[in-house]
């Protein structure tokens, strides 16, 4: 709700200013359009920040040798079911159903699709060893999440929370099927059991 309020607080004044400017002085149309652009861009920047939590690369990690990567993915595969294993192979994210919603866990963060599938929270969280292979990074987060879901969400930094469509647009195309799977899983969750 706080994030929704923040978005509204950014969007409404810019839209209102754009309308008022145009009504007062139609020649100020370019300024009005700039104001509308601000109303659009600011939430998009927040959503980009959210989607970045599952972005791979960017020089944050040291690339692990191929054999270490394969071993880590093998261990990760032992921890999850067939469906999550296949999704990870396709998208790089692991789907994990929890009490708070459906999680999509990546090497340096996780997306939480809230029950109902309309809202997504983006958490920046990881393990402080840049040389770990990506499978191990995910396994670290997955085990921590399974042991204490609410603790995990508390330790992690909330980078963005908002509409699913905003996050989906900003995800790498290869990761979008993971979000779709997370939304499908979140829709099946019982919202009455939600803390």
């Amino acid at each position: 709700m706080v994030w929704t309020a923040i978005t509204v607080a950014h969007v409404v004044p810019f839209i209102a200013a754009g309308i008022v400017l145009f009504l007062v002085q139609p020649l100020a149309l370019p300024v009005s359009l700039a104001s509308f652009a601000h109303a659009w861009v600011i939430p998009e920047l927040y959503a980009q920040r959210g989607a970045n939590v599952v972005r791979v690369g960017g020089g944050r990690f040291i690339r692990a040798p191929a054999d270490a990567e394969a071993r880590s993915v093998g261990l990760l595969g032992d921890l999850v079911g067939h469906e999550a294993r296949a999704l990870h192979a396709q998208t790089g994210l692991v789907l994990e159903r929890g009490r708070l919603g459906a999680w999509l866990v990546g090497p340096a963060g996780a997306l939480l699709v809230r029950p109902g599938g309309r809202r997504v929270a983006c958490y920046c969280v990881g393990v402080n060893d840049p040389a770990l292979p990506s499978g191990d990074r995910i396994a670290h987060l997955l085990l921590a999440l399974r042991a204490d879901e609410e603790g995990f969400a508390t330790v992690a930094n909330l980078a963005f929370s908002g509409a699913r469509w905003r996050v989906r647009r900003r995800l790498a195309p290869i990761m979008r099927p993971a979000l779709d799977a997370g939304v499908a899983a979140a829709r099946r969750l019982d919202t009455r059991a939600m803390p």
Partner: protein
Amino acid sequence: MSRLIRMDQSGHTTLAQWTADDPEAVEAAVATFREELDRGYFAMVSTGEGQAEQVRELPVGAELVIMRLPISGG
């Protein structure tokens, strides 16, 4: 055969293997387990589908005990 593994830069390393009826192997596994805890690792055991538990003592009956590093917000 139970295994104690540590997630590390090699993917993972098997630190100890034991069976409950082999006291020497259990003792060696417990010693290794404590060393890893002292190094700052957390010990995790799967307790069912989608569930895990952090343990402070080596669960001798567990099939797989995984040592992981702490996580932090980025």
